[in-house]
C-alpha cells in the first residue's frame, strides 16, 4: 500500500508537474595539473514568476520562491567561492565567480525603494545559506551601467537602477554554507549527484565555488510564456598533487561512487571532457554510454557521456605513463589586479588586462571600490603597451564616506595581442577606532574588478549559451559571440590604525591642551593686573611654618593672641595710609 502510494506520488510529481529537475556533472581534466569538476543542478518551473504566488511548490525550493516573491526579484546570481580561478592556465569556468561572496540581483521594474529591498534580500539570503551576506548594504553596492545585463528573459527595457552588485571578498565558502545549499536541491544530498558533495572532500580543493542563480527563460521555442529557472552549481578544481595521483576517479574525488540518480530528476548525466586526451592520453573505465562531439565557435570538443541508472558506478581514468610536455594555450582574455606604492599614505590601484586574441576586443571593466580608499581620478592612466588608450565610455561615481562606494566602469578597446594597464591613485583614509575590522592590521579586502567581454571564439569556453539551461545545451551551441565575465584577484589594503588601547589617554591629553588655553585666557580676560610682594620665603621654611601652624595652632593662638591684636592694628593703619595715597594720586591724574 505504502509502495503504491509512493509510486503514484512519484509519477504525479515527475510526469504531471510543471517542474523539471536535471542534474549534470562535468569532469574536465585541465591542461595544467588540475582536474575541474562542475555540478549543474537545474530546476525549471513552467510558471510565470510575475503571476505565481509561490504558495505551493513541488520540487522547486519554496524558500527561494518566497525570496523571489517578497523582494520582487527578477534575477539573482549568488556565488560563494574560496580560492582563485586561474584563468591564464585553467581557461574559463562554466560559471564565473569572484573571490569570496558575490551577489548581483535584478529587481523587477515595478520595485519601489530598491535599496531597502536589497538590504532585506541580503539579510534573507544570509539566513538561507548561512553566509555573512548581511554585510552587504548600500555602502558597498553599486548599480553597474554596462557590465551586467539580465541573463534571462526580459520584457521591459533595461534600466540599471534596478540592478545591485556587491562583493564580499573576505567571505569564504565553507561547510556551513554547503549544508543549507544542499537542502535547496530536490533530493537534498541524499541521492543523485548531490550525494557526492561531501564537505570533507570538496573543501580540499584548490578552488571551490557554490552558486545559486535564478532567472527566467522561454518555456518553448515560440517564447510566449516564461519559465522560472533555479540553477545551483558547484565548481571544484582538484590538484593532482593533492590527490596524490593523476588517475582521478569519482571515488578518489568525492570519497564515494555514484549510487544512483535522484528519483526526482528527469536526467542524471556525467560528462567527461576528453579534449585534453590528445595531448595527455588517458582511458576511461567503464566505457561511456555515448561519445559526443561538439563543434562550437570553431572549437571541437569531445565528451564521454554517462547516463546514470540505478546501478552504482565510479568513473575512473587511467593515464599512460608517458607524459607529453604541454604547451599552454592561454585564453584570449585574462586580467589581474594589484597595488603599487608603499607606505600607508597613498597608493595606486592597477588592473592589468591581457588580450591574446589576434583581433581587438572591446571589454567592460567594473571596479567597485570601497569608500575607504577615495580615488584621485585625475591621475587615471590607461596604457596599452605603453601607449595611451582612451576609454570608449567611462562612468565614474565617486564614493562618499560611510555611504557609498566608488563606482568606476569603463569600456576599453584592447588592440590585438596587447597588455593594458589601468592605474589610478588613491589615498588611505583613517577610520573611527570602532570601524576597523577585527584584526585590523590584517587589512581590508578590496573587491575584484569584473571584466566582461564578448569573445568571437569559443576557445577555452565552457559556459552555457544565454538561451541554454542545462550543460548539454552548450553542445554545438555556436553563437556570434561568447560572453565571459572574468574576475581579478581581490587585494588587501592595510589602513593605518590608531592605537586601540589609547582612547582614555587621547581624550585626556587633548582635553589637557584645551584646558591649557582656557586657564590663561580666562585669567587674562577676567582678572586685573596688580603688583604683589614677592614671596622670598624658601619652600622648605614655608612648609615648616604651615605645618607648625597646623599642629601648634591652639597653643600659639592662646599665647600670641594679645600680640597679634597689636600687629593687626598696625597693618590696618598702614593699609589705610596707602589707600589714601592712591586716592590722592588718582585725583592728581584726573586734574
Amino acid at each position, binding site marked *: 500500500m505504502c509502495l503504491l502510494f509512493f509510486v503514484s506520488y512519484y509519477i504525479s510529481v515527475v510526469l504531471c508537474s510543471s517542474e523539471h529537475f536535471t542534474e549534470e556533472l562535468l569532469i574536465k581534466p585541465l591542461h595544467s595539473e588540475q582536474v575541474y569538476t562542475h555540478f549543474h543542478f537545474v530546476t525549471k518551473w513552467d510558471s510565470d514568476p510575475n503571476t505565481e504566488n509561490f504558495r505551493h511548490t513541488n520540487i522547486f525550493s519554496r524558500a527561494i520562491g518566497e525570496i523571489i516573491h517578497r523582494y520582487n526579484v527578477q534575477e539573482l546570481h549568488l556565488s560563494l567561492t574560496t580560492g582563485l580561478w586561474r584563468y591564464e592556465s585553467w581557461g574559463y569556468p562554466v560559471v564565473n565567480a569572484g573571490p569570496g561572496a558575490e551577489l548581483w540581483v535584478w529587481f523587477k521594474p515595478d520595485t519601489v525603494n530598491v535599496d531597502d529591498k536589497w538590504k532585506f534580500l541580503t539579510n534573507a539570503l544570509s539566513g538561507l545559506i548561512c553566509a555573512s551576506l548581511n554585510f552587504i548594504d548600500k555602502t558597498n553596492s553599486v548599480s553597474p551601467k554596462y557590465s551586467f545585463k539580465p541573463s534571462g528573459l526580459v520584457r521591459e527595457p533595461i534600466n540599471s537602477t534596478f540592478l545591485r552588485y556587491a562583493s564580499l571578498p573576505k567571505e569564504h565558502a565553507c561547510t556551513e554554507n554547503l549544508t543549507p545549499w544542499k537542502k535547496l536541491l530536490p533530493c537534498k544530498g541524499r541521492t543523485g549527484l548531490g550525494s557526492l558533495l561531501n564537505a570533507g572532500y570538496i573543501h580540499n580543493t584548490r578552488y571551490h565555488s557554490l552558486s545559486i542563480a535564478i532567472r527566467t527563460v522561454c518555456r518553448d521555442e515560440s517564447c510566449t510564456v516564461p519559465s522560472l529557472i533555479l540553477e545551483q552549481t558547484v565548481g571544484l578544481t582538484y590538484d593532482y598533487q593533492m590527490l596524490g595521483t593523476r588517475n582521478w576517479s569519482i571515488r578518489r574525488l568525492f570519497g564515494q561512487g555514484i549510487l544512483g540518480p535522484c528519483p526526482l530528476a528527469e536526467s542524471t548525466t556525467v560528462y567527461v571532457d576528453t579534449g585534453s586526451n590528445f595531448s595527455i592520453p588517458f582511458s576511461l573505465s567503464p566505457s561511456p554510454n555515448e561519445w559526443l562531439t561538439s563543434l562550437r565557435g570553431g572549437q571541437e570538443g569531445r565528451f564521454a557521456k554517462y547516463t546514470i541508472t540505478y546501478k552504482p558506478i565510479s568513473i575512473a581514468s587511467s593515464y599512460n605513463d608517458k607524459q607529453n610536455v604541454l604547451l599552454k594555450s592561454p585564453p584570449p582574455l585574462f586580467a589581474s589586479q594589484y597595488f603599487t606604492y608603499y*607606505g*600607508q*599614505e*597613498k597608493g595606486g590601484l592597477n588592473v592589468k588586462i591581457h588580450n591574446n586574441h589576434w583581433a581587438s576586443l572591446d571589454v567592460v571593466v567594473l571596479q567597485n571600490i570601497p*569608500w575607504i580608499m*577615495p580615488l*584621485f*581620478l*585625475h591621475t587615471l592612466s590607461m596604457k596599452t603597451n605603453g601607449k595611451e588608450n582612451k576609454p570608449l*565610455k*567611462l*562612468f*565614474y*561615481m*565617486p*564614493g*562618499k*564616506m560611510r555611504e*557609498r562606494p566608488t563606482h568606476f566602469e569603463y569600456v576599453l578597446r584592447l588592440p590585438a595581442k596587447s597588455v593594458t594597464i589601468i592605474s589610478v591613485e588613491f589615498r588611505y*583614509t*583613517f*577610520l*573611527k*577606532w*570602532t570601524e576597523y575590522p577585527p584584526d585590523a592590521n590584517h587589512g581590508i579586502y578590496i573587491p575584484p574588478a569584473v571584466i566582461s567581454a564578448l569573445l568571437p571564439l569559443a576557445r577555452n569556453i565552457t559556459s552555457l549559451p544565454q538561451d541554454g539551461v542545462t550543460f548539454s545545451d552548450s553542445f554545438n551551441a555556436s553563437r556570434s559571440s561568447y560572453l565571459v565575465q572574468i574576475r581579478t584577484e581581490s587585494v588587501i589594503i592595510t589602513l*593605518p*590604525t*590608531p*592605537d586601540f588601547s*589609547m*582612547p582614555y*589617554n*587621547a*581624550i585626556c*591629553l*587633548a582635553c589637557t*591642551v*584645551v584646558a*591649557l*588655553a*582656557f586657564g*590663561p*585666557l*580666562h*585669567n*587674562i*580676560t*577676567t*582678572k*586685573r*593686573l*596688580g*603688583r*604683589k*610682594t*614677592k614671596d*622670598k620665603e624658601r619652600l622648605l621654611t614655608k612648609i615648616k611654618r604651615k605645618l607648625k601652624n597646623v599642629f601648634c595652632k591652639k597653643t600659639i593662638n592662646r599665647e600670641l593672641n594679645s600680640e597679634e591684636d597689636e600687629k593687626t592694628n598696625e597693618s590696618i593703619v*598702614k593699609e589705610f595710609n*596707602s589707600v589714601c595715597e592712591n586716592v590722592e594720586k588718582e585725583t592728581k*591724574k584726573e586734574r
Partner: protein
Amino acid sequence: MPRNITLILTNYFVGIAIRLWLFFIDYNTIFMNRVEISTPLNSWRRVVEANYISKISNSPNPYESDVIYEPPLYHMFYMVLSNLFGEQIYLMFIIADILTSYCLCVAGKKYLETLFKKEISNIDDYLPDAVNFIIKEQEIESVDVYIVAAYMLNPYIIFNCVGYTTTVFQNLYLGLFFVGIVKKNVFLASISLAAAISQSFYPILLLAPLFVTFNDKRFNATLVTTLTLIISGLILIISSFLNPKWSYLNHSLKFILSAPDFTPNIGLFWYFFIEMFEHFRTLFIYSFQLNVIALYVIPLTLRFRQDPVLLTTSLLGIITIFKSYPSLGEVGFVLAVLPFWKHLQFYMQQGLLTSVSFFMVTLLAPTVWHLWLYSGSANANFYFGATLAFATAQIFMLTDLLFAYIKREYIIKYGCVKECDGQEAVLLLE
C-alpha cells in the same frame, strides 16, 4: 633709495625666488601631499579632482561625494583661475602671497601709526617713566621690513604657497580684512570678511572685531555686521545657483562642523575623534566646536575692545589652534602678524620656549609620520604627540602675547616700579 625700501624689495625678491625654486624642484608634490599643509578643506589636489570629474561624461556632482568641500562659487573661481593660468597656476599663488604681505605691511604700519598718535596724545596721563615705554617712531619705520619678512620668508607660508593650498586665498581675504579694520574701510572689511566666512566658516568670529571697530559715531556697527553676514549669505546663495542642490552645504558647513574625516592634521580633532567612544561623540563634537566658536569670543572682545587688531589676531590664533582642519598656512599667517607687536617683545617671556617648540615640532612631525606610515616602527600616538606639542606651543605664544599686551598697558599707566611697600614686587593677575 631709502634703506627700508631696499630691504623690503630684497625680502620680496628672496621670498619669490624661494617659492619659484620650490615650485620647480622634483619634490614639489611632497608639499602638496603633506597633511600638515593640505587638509581636506584646502587641498588643491581636490580642486583639480573636482575639475576633472565635472568634465567626464556622466559628470557626477563633486558635492555629492568626498571630493571638494569649499562652496561652489569658490570652486568656480579656482576653475577660472586654472583656465586662465593653465600650467602657470603657481604664479597665482605667488601673486596672492605678495598681495597678502603688502596688505599686512600697510595694515601694520597704519596700526602702529595710530597707536603712536594715541599714545603721544595721551602722554600727559602716563607716569613720567612711562615715556620710555611708549612706542618709538623709528620702530614704526622699520616695522614694514619685519612684516614683509615674516610673511614672505616665513617657512610655513612658503610651504603653504608651494603646497598649492586654497589657504593662500583665505590669507589674502584676512590680510584685506586687516587693512579694512585698520583704515576703517567698511566695504573692504565686510566684503573680505564675508569671503573668508563663506570659505571656511570659522572667521565668523571676526565679526566681533568688525563690530568693535565700527562701533563709533560715524558708523553703525550693527549695520556693518549685518552687511557682512548678508554678503556671505549672498555668496552661499550664488553658490546654490551654480550647484542646483543645496547638498553642497552638507559638504562644506556640515563637514567643517562635524569633522567626519579623520586624516591627521596639526589640529586636535583627528585623533581625539578617532579614539572617541561612540556614545560621547556628539557631546564632544559640540563641546570642541563651542570651545572655538563661542567660548573665547565674548571675554576677549570685552577685554580688548580698545584694540580690534589685537582682538582679530587673538581670535585668529584661537581658530587656528582649535578649528577642525587647521593647516600650517593659517599658523603662518598668525605668526606673520606678530611683528605688529614687535614693541611687546620686551614683555614676552616665552619666546624661546615657543620658538624652539615650533622648530622642533616642525622637524619632528614629518619624521614620526614617516616612522608611523612608512617604516611601521612608530604608531599614531607619536604623531598625535607632535600635534599636541604644536598646539601647546601656539597656545603659549598666544597667551604670552596677550599677557605682554596687558603688562605693557599697565606699565605705561603705572610705571615700571618693581617695588611694593618697600619690598620687591611682581606683576600678577588677581
